């Protein structure tokens, strides 16, 4: 019965009408050491096809190295950021004076205050002088 089925499958096989599962059955049957004598001629065919699948490629595939792609626009962004930081630093940073310069600045302010005080006193003095000019005018009136 088994043999009858194999024979039937074989007929279908050569007509191209077997499914993958049926072909697997055939390969399995012919992979045995003992097959029916009148089917022995087919054994090398199925053995060969099975063996053909065991062949593997031994050569490695050589792919070009993937190049590290730097996106161009990054350059522009990076440069802009650097420039922006530079400008901002220049604009916003307070000028730092050394100890000596600070002392000089304080001395300058004090000097200025002193000078202003002096000029104020001079002005007051000058106002007092106007009385003298009034005195001169009155004297002239009387003593023509």
């Amino acid at each position: 019965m088994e043999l009858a089925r194999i024979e039937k499958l074989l007929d279908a096989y050569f007509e191209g009408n077997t499914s993958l599962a049926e072909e697997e059955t055939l390969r399995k049957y012919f992979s045995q050491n003992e097959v029916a004598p009148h089917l022995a001629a087919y054994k090398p065919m199925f053995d060969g096809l099975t063996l053909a699948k065991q062949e593997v490629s031994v050569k490695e595939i050589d792919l070009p190295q993937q190049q590290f792609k730097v996106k161009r626009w990054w350059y522009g962004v990076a440069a802009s950021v650097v420039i922006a930081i530079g400008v901002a630093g220049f604009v916003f940073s307070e000028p730092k004076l050394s100890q000596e310069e600070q002392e000089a600045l304080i001395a300058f302010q004090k000097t200025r205050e002193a000078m202003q005080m002096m000029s104020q006193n001079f002005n007051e003095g000058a106002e007092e002088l106007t009385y003298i000019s009034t005195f001169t005018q009155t004297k002239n009136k009387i003593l023509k």
Partner: protein
Amino acid sequence: MKQKEFIATVLPFKDKLYRLAKRILVSGDEADDAVQEVYLKLWKGRNKISNYKNPEAFAVTMTKNYCLDRLKSKQASNLKIVHNNFQTSENVERKIEANDGVQLVFKIMETLPEQQRIVLQLRDVEQFEFAEIAKMLDSNETAVRVNLSRARKTVREELIKKHNYGIS
């Protein structure tokens, strides 16, 4: 697509491509070159490869076309090389040599017309479904079955002829 991802996608069927290339070109060295070329092409188009539903079928079609082109250009320049080295892997080689009948089957396969050889390879060696093969070969299932039937019958006839002479 990164190289790692690419390799994970396409490397599993490298041996299938190699065997197909060898079935068509016969020479193992030529098959190696063909596979290398196909992979380079796949690599160049790697950003599209994820769009294909079935990268394997796509690669098989590419391999088939490339090998047939190679054959054509070789025949055109009268450089038809005759190689009998249907072995690369050593253990397979020994197994084939140990069996006269199998060796004969391989020889017969080399004499088949290319289309039949391709169909026989894809169906009986790689065990693809008819629908898949039809798609790979840009053909239809009926044509695939007809070609396959012819290929199988030719192998059978040659085999029985030799068998009756008492070689096997």
